C-alpha cells in the first residue's frame, strides 16, 4: 500500500467503479472469491439507473418475478452492504485510473476520502451509459428550457418528484421514451405524440402496446422534429415527414405542434469517460471497450461489465455480466495459474446481419463463452450461426430477432472444440422462408 500526500490509502484487491446493477454484482462476486473490494459510487444511492425505473419488468430471469427497478436494486444493495469484505464509498467519483497489470492507482474524490489515491490489483468498470442529447442529433432553432433527454426527465419525475412539463412531444421510440410517455400521462401531463425517424419503432412491441396504445398516444413513424421554437420556455416544435430511405425531411410536410416539453429518446451510449484514458481499446460499434470472454479489456487487470460494455435491455443479464467480471477481476488480483498461461487469441468478428457483438476476442477458446449481440434489422425465422472457417461451431434458431433485444448465445467447451481460427458470428433468415 502507498500513502499519498492528498489522501489516505486503503488499497483493495479489486476496485469497482459504479454501483449500478453491474457494479453491485461485480463487488459481491469478487468478495465471494476472497478478494477485498472497494465499490465507488458517484451518486447518493446504490442501484444506478434502476432507482428511476419505477415500472415493473425487472428480474424475471433471475428471481422468477417481475420486480420494479428500485426493488431489484435493493436486493443487491442489501447483499453488498452486509458483506464485510466490501467497502462502499458513496457520493464518490473515480476521476482517473493509472498504472497497469496489478498495480493500479485510482484517483477519487468524495466526502469520506477527500481527494485520494487508492491502489488496486484489478479494476472493474461499471459506469453504465449516457443518453444521446440534442447535440448528437442536430435540431435547429433556439435554446429554450423544456428540452430534456427522456432519462433525465425520468429521474426528475421518479426520484425528485418534479414533472417537467404539461404538453409533451417525445422524439424517438426507444424504450425509455415509451416508458416516459406513459409515466408523464399517468402523472397528469398530456403526451401529444411520439415521433420516430425510422420506419419501425425502436422499442419493444410490448412497450408500444402497453405504454402508447393503452393511453391513446399516437406514434408517428418516419417523422422527426426539425426545429424548436420559444425564447425562455419551449412553445412549439416543427415536425416533418422523412424519406424512409434517406431519412431526410420531406420539404412541404413541416407542421407546427404547440407544446412546452420535448423529450429526446434517441439512444444510449456506454459511459467511457474514465476508461478511455486507461488506453483500453474501444469498439466503435458497441461504443464500449473491446473485451475477451473474461470481460478483460486490452489493459490487463481492467475489466468492464453492464451498459458500459454494451448497452443492455435486461438487467438480469447486466447482473450476470457484472458477476462474471467480478470473478475474473478477483482471479487476476489473487493470482490464478490458468490466467498466467500465455493466451492463444482467437478473434470474434461480426458477419452478415450482426450489428454489435461482445466479446471481441477469446483468450482461451476451450472455455465457456457467452456471446451477446444485436442484429441489424428485424428478422423472422432467423438463424444465428457461429463459424470457424468452414466449421459450424453452433447454430441457434430464433422465431424472431429484433435490434432492440440483445441476443445471448452460450458456447460450451464441446462447441468450441472444432475452433481452429477466428470466429464469425452472423444472423440471417432461413433460406426459402419469408
Amino acid at each position, binding site marked *: 500500500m502507498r500513502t499519498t500526500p492528498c489522501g489516505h490509502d486503503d488499497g483493495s484487491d479489486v476496485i469497482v467503479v459504479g454501483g449500478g446493477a453491474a457494479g453491485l454484482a461485480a463487488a459481491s462476486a469478487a468478495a465471494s472469491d476472497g478478494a477485498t473490494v472497494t465499490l465507488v459510487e458517484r451518486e447518493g444511492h446504490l442501484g444506478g439507473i434502476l*432507482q428511476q425505473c*419505477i*415500472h*415493473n419488468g425487472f428480474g424475471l430471469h433471475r428471481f422468477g418475478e*417481475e*420486480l*420494479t427497478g*428500485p*426493488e431489484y436494486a*435493493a436486493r443487491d444493495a442489501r447483499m453488498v452492504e452486509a458483506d464485510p469484505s466490501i467497502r462502499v464509498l458513496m457520493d464518490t467519483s473515480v476521476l482517473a485510473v493509472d498504472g497497469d497489470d496489478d498495480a493500479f492507482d485510482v484517483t477519487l474524490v468524495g466526502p469520506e476520502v477527500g481527494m485520494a489515491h487508492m491502489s488496486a490489483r484489478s479494476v472493474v468498470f461499471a459506469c453504465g451509459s449516457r443518453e444521446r442529447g440534442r447535440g448528437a442529433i442536430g435540431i435547429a432553432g433556439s435554446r429554450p428550457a423544456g428540452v430534456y433527454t427522456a432519462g433525465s426527465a425520468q429521474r426528475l*419525475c*421518479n*426520484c*425528485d*418528484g418534479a414533472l417537467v412539463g404539461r404538453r409533451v412531444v417525445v422524439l424517438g421510440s426507444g424504450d425509455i421514451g415509451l416508458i416516459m410517455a406513459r409515466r408523464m400521462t*399517468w*402523472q*397528469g401531463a398530456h403526451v401529444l405524440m411520439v415521433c420516430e425517424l425510422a420506419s419501425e419503432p425502436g422499442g*419493444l*412491441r*410490448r412497450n*408500444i*402496446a*402497453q405504454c402508447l*396504445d*393503452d393511453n391513446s398516444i399516437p406514434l408517428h413513424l418516419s417523422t422527426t422534429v426539425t426545429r424548436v421554437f420559444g425564447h425562455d420556455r419551449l412553445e412549439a416544435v416543427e415536425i416533418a415527414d422523412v424519406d424512409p430511405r434517406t431519412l431526410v425531411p420531406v420539404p412541404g410536410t413541416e407542421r407546427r405542434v404547440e407544446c412546452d416539453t420535448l423529450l429526446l429518446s434517441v439512444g444510449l451510449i456506454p459511459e467511457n469517460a474514465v476508461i478511455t484514458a486507461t488506453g483500453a481499446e474501444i469498439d466503435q460499434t458497441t461504443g464500449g471497450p473491446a473485451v475477451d470472454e473474461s470481460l478483460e479489456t486490452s489493459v490487463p487487470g481492467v475489466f468492464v461489465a453492464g451498459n458500459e460494455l454494451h448497452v443492455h435491455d435486461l438487467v438480469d443479464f447486466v447482473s450476470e455480466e457484472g458477476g462474471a467480471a467480478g470473478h475474473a477481476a478477483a482471479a487476476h488480483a489473487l493470482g490464478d495459474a490458468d490466467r498466467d498461461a500465455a493466451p492463444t487469441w482467437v478473434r470474434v468478428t461480426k458477419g452478415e446481419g450482426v450489428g454489435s457483438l461482445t466479446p471481441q476476442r477469446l483468450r482461451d477458446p476451450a472455455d465457456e463463452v457467452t456471446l451477446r449481440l444485436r442484429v441489424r434489422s428485424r428478422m*423472422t425465422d432467423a438463424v444465428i450461426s457461429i463459424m470457424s472457417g468452414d466449421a459450424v461451431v453452433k447454430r441457434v434458431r430464433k*422465431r*424472431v*430477432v*429484433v435490434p432492440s*433485444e440483445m441476443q445471448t448465445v452460450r458456447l460450451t467447451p464441446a462447441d468450441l472444440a472444432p475452433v481452429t481460427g477466428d470466429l464469425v458470428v452472423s444472423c440471417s433468415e432461413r433460406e426459402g422462408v419469408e
Partner: protein
Amino acid sequence: MSDVERREFTCVRCPMGCSLTVSLDDGVVTDVTGNGCPRGHAYGEHEATHPERVVTSLVRVAGDFRPVSVKTVSPVPKECVADVLAAVAATTVEPPVSIGDVLVPDVCGTGVDVVATRASA
C-alpha cells in the same frame, strides 16, 4: 341478431408481437387469429374480456420532496387504472417508509394493495 365484434391487439407475450384479431359474440370470444402460438390465443382472450395491468406510480412523503415509488401488488382491471392513479396521487404518507409497506390498502375496492417499492428514511 347477436352482437358480433372484432378487436385488434398486440400480443406482448414474446418479442414476435403478433397482431391478434379477436372475434367476440355477445362478449364471448369465438375466435382468435394472427397468433403465432397458443400463448397468443390465451392472451387475446384475456385482453378482450378482462384486461388487467400492474400500476406503478409515486406517493408523496410528508416533509420530503422525494416521493416513494409504489406498485399494485397484482394487476388491477384496466378500467380501474385511472382511478387507482388518482387514489395514489391523493395519498401522502409519513416517513419512514420501507419497501413492501402497504400505503393504500384495497385500492378503489379492487381488493389489491398498493405497496412501496422504494424506502424513505
